[in-house]
């Protein structure tokens, strides 16, 4: 990790634990604090500390926020302003209401176990450690968090902020660091042994590899969080231009790497309506490109992206003579973004990196059927609702929300808010049973 120093060379926050000795010492301290917290702290007190620490991160002049923005932008290639927006999304979700819902959900599911939970987080989107920390602390657990090497800053920095309000809670957060590639078997083994639950996030291959690697060291419960797919839905009667504005943010944010990135947007109605959304989305993605220039992916990711663009363009060119409206393709200057209006409403992962497919569906039933077919991989559905012409308030249509959840969506939210899930959102929408060692 790079130097975690302010300009005056004062440490901004304590760096992640990187040795076995540091871990042993931190675990002992964390366990002492955990006993104190469990005995004396109310849920409201813990939630209040978390909310106040989160509020600090919403202040533009907060040094830790500024540091994290720069560090994440450097490590991921995401535009700095995009990272800043992402940090606003992450920390504005850590509210008293959200934390109360989270505590309630965890309590109902009896997910809490005395001890530590280890989270190995993916590098695709920043700030995944924040809800993990909240969940652990609200349930009286120690959170051991390994951020991706691509996201090295936020967990340790947030711990520092939390310490301003409740040092005992901060002591229950243990950021750890090692290279997955180079590894540190002694430290890794100690972490896995200490954890009663292990949550692994990343690509399917990564989580499977890590689970295989950690299996021998643990008798705890493992949760593997691999690939998921999200989608958008423009309800009949929704304002298409407004929907496009929201979905453009959802598509561009984190360069489409998150499991809440929409890969397909379904448009209730005819092909002309899908075309209208395609055109509007193209305009909005062009505006996004001006605001947040696209970050490059790896050579393989860029190749997959090129495949999407080629396929979109070829489908459009080939379809032109017989069904001129069915396939339509818009590509930004220098291929900065691509909107493929397709006749295929199948929900599937695309390459991300600002490539999105739009498809018309005849009616609500067809939309629900298409989304339901993606179960159990379906994660979020962003909705441009119809009620009152307000395309950004999904709660206008509670029936739709219920139908989408029944279809498998774990998050239903307005267009433009897909990358800002509430703090109590979990990909599986439920807690996992207590580990009994």
């Amino acid at each position, binding site marked *: 990790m790079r130097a975690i120093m302010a300009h005056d060379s004062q440490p901004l926050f304590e760096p992640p634990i990187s040795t076995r000795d540091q871990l042993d010492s931190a675990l002992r301290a964390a366990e002492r604090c955990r006993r104190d917290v469990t005995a004396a702290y109310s849920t409201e007190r813990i939630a209040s500390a978390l909310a106040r620490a989160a509020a600090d991160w919403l202040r533009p002049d907060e040094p830790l926020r500024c540091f994290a923005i720069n560090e994440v932008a450097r490590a991921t290639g995401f535009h700095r302003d995009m990272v800043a927006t992402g940090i606003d999304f992450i920390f504005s979700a850590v509210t008293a209401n959200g934390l109360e819902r989270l505590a309630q959900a965890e309590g109902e599911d009896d997910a809490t176990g005395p001890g530590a939970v280890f989270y190995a987080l993916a590098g695709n989107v920043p700030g995944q450690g924040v809800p993990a920390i909240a969940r652990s602390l609200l349930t009286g657990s120690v959170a051991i968090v390994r951020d991706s090497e691509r996201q090295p800053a936020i967990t340790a920095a947030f711990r520092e902020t939390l310490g301003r309000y409740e040092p005992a809670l901060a002591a229950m957060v243990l950021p750890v660091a090692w290279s997955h590639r180079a590894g540190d078997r002694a430290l890794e083994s100690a972490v896995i042994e200490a954890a009663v639950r292990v949550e692994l996030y990343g690509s399917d291959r990564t989580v499977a590899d890590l689970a295989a690697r950690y299996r021998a060291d643990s008798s705890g419960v493992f949760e593997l969080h*691999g690939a998921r797919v999200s989608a958008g839905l423009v309800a009949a009667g929704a304002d298409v231009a407004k929907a496009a504005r929201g979905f453009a943010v959802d598509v561009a944010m984190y360069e489409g790497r998150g499991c809440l990135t929409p890969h397909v947007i379904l448009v209730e109605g005819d092909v002309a309506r899908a075309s209208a959304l395609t055109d509007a989305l193209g305009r909005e993605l062009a505006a996004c490109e001006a605001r947040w220039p696209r970050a490059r992916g790896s050579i393989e990711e860029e190749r997959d992206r090129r495949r999407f663009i080629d396929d979109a363009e070829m489908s459009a060119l080939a379809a032109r003579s017989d069904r001129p409206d069915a396939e339509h393709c818009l590509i930004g200057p220098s291929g900065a973004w691509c909107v493929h209006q397709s006749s295929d409403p199948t929900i599937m992962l695309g390459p991300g990196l600002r490539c999105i497919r739009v498809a018309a569906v005849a009616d609500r039933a067809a939309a629900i059927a298409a989304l339901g077919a993606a179960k159990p991989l379906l994660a979020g559905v962003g909705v441009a609702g119809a009620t009152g012409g307000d395309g950004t308030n999904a709660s206008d249509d509670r029936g739709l929300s219920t139908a989408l959840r029944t279809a498998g969506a774990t998050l239903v939210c307005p267009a433009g808010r897909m990358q800002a899930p509430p703090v109590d959102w979990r990909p599986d929408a439920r807690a996992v049973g207590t580990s*009994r060692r």
Partner: protein
Amino acid sequence: MTNLESRVLDFIREPGGEAELNELALTVFAHQYEQVPVYRRFCQRRGIEPAGVVRWEDIPALPADAFKHGLDAADRPHVFLSSGTTAGPEQRSRHAVESLAAYEASALAHFRAMVLADEPGPLATLVLGPTTISHPRSSLGRMFSWCADLCSNGDTLVAFDSDGRTDVAAAVTWLGEKSRESAPVLILAVTSALTAVFEALRDRHGPCRLPADSRIVDTGGRKGSAHALSPNGVLKAAWRWLHVPAYLCVNEYGMTEMFSQFYDDALESRASGRLSPRAKVGPPWVRTRIVDPATMEPVAPGTVGLLRHFDLANWESVSALQTLDLGREVGIGFELRGRAAGAEARGCSALVTEILDAGADGGA
């Protein structure tokens, strides 16, 4: 035979210089612009017309996947289909032409240059891959048949059936017989079939010492689902199990969408006394550029990017092809760094809850 076909064939027989290639390339482009509607629309989308193009480098490169979208007229007599191993049978490329003359001339001329550069004379030939008889719609099958006919001393075994099964036992028996004779052997193989033969030798029969100057041409690599050795694995196994040295092992890279091929230059460079790192080299009527997949602009020398080919032998369809294969410039050719394949799913949160067997008596 059309005038344009004659000119292409003349160039293949007696390749001209850069200026001649450029002039012919522009003529071919104008022809394709007129004859291939999808390609014309593709160019028009970019505001490019033949009259405005003066360098072959500026001819728009059509994605090779366009051949999956019905590029050709339906009633052409010669139709080749890709195997569909990469993207599934419903996503097969289709390449249809009136004449095979340019394909044959290109395939044989470059095969001679790269595989027969040392003029070994007639060869006993083992085919571990498709032929025109077993796979009439396979462009590779057509090429293997031509090459076998060109090289064979009359002793040819095809140990590959129409279902794609390799007759490993027959191949091993045949190789054993040839190892006791003096005539050098040519093996034309898809890499997966060759791998199966190596495994049979390893597991059951032991090594087999083929006569000097025997050579292996393999193609396909790890593309598709079949079990196949890596390029280095093929080189090691060829020496270990058949006693064929690495410089007589030539990996071919080709595609249904393109009538010319690329070969490792190991044999050719040794025959010509040139020492250079192993690279894939195309014929003089082909040009290859390596482009950045994000910008589609040429990359700096040595940088990995997407391979973009221009092939005069494709004069009837589209010559400028943008592939999704990765490569980087090496020596006088390029190193193949990965064939196009399906993308790995990415994301952060498909829940596949696993409760470990050991010690976990609770359930999710």
